[in-house]
């Protein structure tokens, strides 16, 4: 079995030094020690037609947490290198805005070689979670085709992990830059058994949260869950708190099933991702293309939270400054809950055996 700690290595996002800071000091031993990472946000900005708005600058974003304005620490657009922001006053000139219609992107996706497309998502760590439960039986192979195509198109992305689930999670391909390994994993899944989507999505979020850098989870599921022990709320909260957008692709059948479609829509919205309900396997491919498109146009912002006594849920708001930008729509996670961290790996490390065998 691969050592999960290998995944902790930095993968080109050196600017994202994840030093931990204490948001609230430990008052005494009876209090939970709340630790807050640098907060990362993936922000999609679109116009009324759903076109991505590009060319925005750091100072045009205002982030508040529980109403407290935050200072941006880093900024990146799409596949640009991330910039650490030392002094925002350096560049106050308005930049020319651009917008990229999804249709144009789609056309690009459909006709251009994957290398071009892949460059859009350079630096992302993409976790794919594939439903292999009995619910997926009918569309199983088409779904695999769509996922394989998606993986192939992610050439320039940092790394991809492929997990599948029914009642249990199978980490078929750990995070890797080797596409053939991932596609091999896609093509060796086995169908059958109950569906525990939220259990396994929770495990996926936890795996992803161990990785530094930008990461997203793409779930391909037919919807129903008949075996999970944890509710979707807990999974959504964890994804929000760890800054991981969740994208979900499902079928029209799932759309008919109101519980799943409700969860899919609300969970993805809360985390800054999106839900897609595909009519057929061609639509599934389009949904994947749309996710690639999204990844390529996200702004990555981060900040270290200002002093905030709130140890519960913290609401995040992102807005754009200036009249000309007010018309645009923003999609990102809407908050997070600082995680208690009294017990850490460091505190538990112990020496090896007393003597050799």
């Amino acid at each position, binding site marked *: 079995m691969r050592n999960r700690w290998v995944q902790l290595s930095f993968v080109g996002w050196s600017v994202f030094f994840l030093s931990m800071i204490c948001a609230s000091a430990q008052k005494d*031993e009876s209090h939970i020690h709340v630790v807050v990472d640098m907060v990362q946000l993936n922000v999609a900005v679109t116009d009324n037609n759903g076109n991505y708005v590009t060319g925005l600058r750091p100072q045009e974003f205002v982030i508040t947490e529980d109403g407290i304005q935050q200072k941006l620490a880093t900024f990146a657009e799409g596949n640009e290198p991330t910039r650490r922001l030392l002094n925002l006053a350096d560049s106050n000139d308005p930049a020319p805005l651009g917008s990229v219609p999804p249709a144009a992107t789609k056309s690009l996706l459909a006709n251009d070689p994957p290398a071009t497309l892949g460059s859009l998502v350079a630096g992302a760590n993409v976790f794919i979670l594939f439903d292999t439960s009995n619910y997926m039986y009918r569309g199983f192979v088409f779904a695999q085709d769509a996922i394989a195509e998606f993986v192939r198109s992610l050439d320039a992305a940092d790394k991809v992990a492929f997990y599948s689930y029914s009642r249990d999670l199978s980490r078929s391909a750990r995070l890797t830059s080797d596409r053939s390994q991932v596609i*091999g994993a896609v093509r060796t899944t086995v169908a059958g058994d109950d569906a525990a989507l939220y259990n396994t999505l929770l495990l996926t979020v936890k795996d992803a949260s161990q990785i530094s850098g930008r990461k997203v989870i793409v779930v391909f599921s037919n919807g129903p869950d008949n075996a999970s022990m944890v509710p979707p709320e*807990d999974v*959504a909260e964890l994804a929000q708190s760890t800054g991981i957008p969740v994208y979900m692709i499902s079928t029209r059948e799932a759309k008919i099933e109101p519980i799943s479609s409700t969860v899919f829509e609300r*969970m993805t919205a809360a985390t800054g991702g999106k839900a897609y309900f595909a009519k057929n396997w061609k639509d599934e491919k389009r949904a994947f293309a749309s996710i690639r498109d999204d990844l390529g146009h996200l702004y990555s912002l981060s900040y270290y939270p200002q002093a905030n006594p709130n140890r519960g849920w913290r609401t995040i708001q992102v807005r754009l400054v200036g009249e000309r930008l007010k018309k645009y729509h923003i999609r990102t996670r809407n908050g997070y809950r600082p995680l208690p961290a009294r017990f850490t790996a460091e505190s538990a490390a112990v020496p090896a055996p007393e003597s050799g065998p």
Partner: protein
Amino acid sequence: MKSPLPVLLVAVAVLLSSSPATADAARGADSSDQALPGSSNAVVNIPGPLRSFMRMAAISQKVAPDEVLPLLGRNVFIEGYEGYQSSRRPTEFLILLHRYVQQARELSNLTDRHGILRVANCEQAKPVLRVLGYRLRPDCGKESTYLETAQPERAFLTIDSGFPLPQLEQALRGGKPFEYEYRGSQVPILFSDREWLASATLDRSNNKDVIDVIVTEPDVARLYWALSRLDPDVTQVLKKSVGIRKLAPLAAVLDFYGTQFRIESGQVLVPGGSEAESSWKDLVGASPADPGEFLERLLAKDRGWLAAYFDALSRLKMSEQKHFTEPQRLRRLYAAFRAPDTSAEAARAVFRPAPGLLLLMTRTQWQADGQPYVPGNLSAWKQIFRQPSDAKVVRDLGKRASHWSTPEQLLEAMFALTRIDSRDTPLQTYLLLSEVDGGRSRQQRLSPDTVQMLARKIARFSDQYLIFCEFPELNDLSISHFLTSAEALDKIPDHVLRGNAMGIFQAQVGIWQIFARQGQIPAAKLNDSWQSTVRPFARIGSAAQLFDVGQNSLREMLKVASGRAHLSQDQVFDLLAGPRQTDAEAERIRQEVADRMRAVLDGQRLVSLDTVFGLGDGLEELARGKVSANSLLPAAGELREFEMPRPIFTPGERTEWSGATYNNNHTELQMRTDLTRIIKSPHSAAQLQEARGQLVPFLRDTLVGLNYAYYEPPGAQALHSNPLLVRSHDFAGDTLAGVEKRVWLAADLVGEGSPAGGGAHLVGSLAELPYVLAEVEQDFISPESVQALIWRELVPEFLVDATVPRWWNVSRNELHAIALHQRAGEELLSAAQNDADLANKVLSILSQRMIPLAFERLQESLATKRVEEILPKITPADTFYLAAEFRRQHPQAVAAVGPAGQELDKISSQYPDEVDWKRLSRDFGVPHPILAQSYRRELLNLKPFPAFQGYSSRLLAESWDSSNLYWARLADEMGYSPASLNRLVPELTRRMVEKIFATEFEDWPAILRALQETGREFRQGKFSSVEMTAASSQH
């Protein structure tokens, strides 16, 4: 093992046959591993790679070739058909298997004469892709080339069977040749193809080989499976004397009850030995000296019930068999067993019926005069049988009970009750009370009054009695106080107060149990501390009073366990983690254990005991004017810090979609609690005193949380991620209709797979918390192999074996003795292959533990001097038992066999107390909550239990006691301290579970394989203790 899609139905003829095109190219299967019983060296050819066939047939990839056909037979009759007899229809599993074989045959036709599938270029790819159900996009030979589905049915088979499609795609993209060995695979057959073809009863025209017959005739499939698990001598006798065709109708009985048959020197070995032969001859109607006739009649007699009786007796040790097979008793007990329903069949269901029979036989206790032991006295049992019952058999026995004059008659009644499919008969009472009383000294036996009291209340409190089995020191008065308090709690009219009181009461009992088990409550104080813990709960009239009782009772218990009544929550964790260790390393591990518990309470976001008790004391002092109101406000504010998870559903959606499983009244009530208002506003002393009652729900959750945290299973996630898990525990049955009668029993798991239900939670008591939590958390363990599953019948018990035991009081010598026993057992086996006398002694001991087929293989390996091959297939518990029992029977002989035996002798004489069997059993055994009705650890030395219907599937897992023995040996040999087991065992167990790749849940070799693979990786340093600790902290 994940079987593909057992849900869909299509009635089609299912025919499989081997491909002549591949027959000559077939490679020889490696059948040297184990000779199939009755093997005639015949083989059958399976088209395509064996691993693909095994995937489609839902057979573990780790089995040997000679196990493939038996497991195919098993899967066909278990999973291949729906309906019964004439209404039988093939399931999707069988249909897919059939389609796969067709596809494999087509691909085989495309291979060259060496059985290689070659694709040199795009043109050659076309026919292959057609068979596979794929097509090339957009053009062949370009970097952008990829494969996509053309025919979904075929493509599904391609993927499901594990065809290397990515490699083919890669080759086509790069314009490189693709080669794949696609030879047919030969696997050994039991008997011969011809004989199986002749056994077919249905249309034979399309049958080409044994596989066709197995797949098309489920009775034959079952017979094949059954015969392959028999002692080879028995298989041969049955084939010769009865014949395959005549055996087919008896396949089910043979499957369930045949594995214990043994023939030696031309004679069937019957339970009870030679002294019982004439009794068996009478019962069966044939002499054991005529094995063919005896076995045939045994299988056919009384619709299989005599075979069931024979089987259960055969599984006992000879000393136990002797009791039951006294001539008169054998007949009388069988008559009693058979009587309740003579028309029922003993092998109609998927699992064996009447689990109580084997349980009763295994656990019956005998008095010195040879009579069965009766808890209380016979009069008490006459009363017990007069209690109202829904079962006619019970009522009839009750009428006869007044005439009983001997314990023998009570035992006969119990045998009759084993046929009743209910957990609510006097049999369960007898089994449970025998366990409660059985561990007591003569002076401390339960009084007849206590027996009757326990029996009267058993329907409501049976699972609570497990603690009385675990602590036989608890006397009649302690038991009585417990029941008085529990019943008083039941009568609290306010359901909110009742639920909180039941929760606090049980949580305190749970904490007492932990302290007592860890030796922190001295034996002399067990009764006093128990009574002071439970007794105050008999008079709860208000929430404020409950708060006082809960606080005082906990403080009393802490005082006994630590010497101090007032401990902080951190200190309580410290105490629960185990006794303080003098060794620095051990102490650090103990702190880790405490930290893990703290992490659970953090994950549950529970208010700390310090806050709750601090506020309680503060309110009292405020009432007396000793503190200012402002000083209490920060703590009162902490009560309001908890927030519900951000809702995904609206209240209306929850109501509509949760199926009534969402109920968080307890949490919502907590969230409405605002002590700051009372503290800030004008108040009387009485109002402040009363306000302490508002702390009760918080106190309950934190105390319950301590119990949850202590039993955290390895790999747990829900405990860390669902902050409502503890809060949602429903003690009073408020959230589900109709569960009021079950609230004191083991908790039910509610809300699994109900996304709008707020997550799974427990409804019921804490009595079996370790097991229920393991059920909650088991599916967060990820199987390592594609197609492997977490076996729900086994895994929770394995997790319990790792979470309940702690090793703080284990000495180095003890740990070393565990390893030495196992090594000495191996030495004995190795030496026995060169020493006939030793071989007889060894076999005589192991015949009491091993099933006949395994025993036969061992015998054969000793005879052929190939013990080294069989050693890895012998469980650690077997080698351990062998050494221990051999030393008991031949005290001087074991040292002569090898160095481990010598060293074992040496430390046994130097440290007799530490190497004492009872102590080793207590420290390295496992809990048996169903078998022995206790969480006490014990090595029971039983043959593996078979799978039964219903709850009794747990018996199967409880009969596995090898894991902790093996982990202990591993730790000893790698130089770890005994205290390290507290860290190692949970994590090694989790990794073992990940590695289990079994075809069915009676697949003990798969469990042993997973155990050994884990040990091997640990020895090789593939994961270290440090890493494991870090991993377990990443919740």
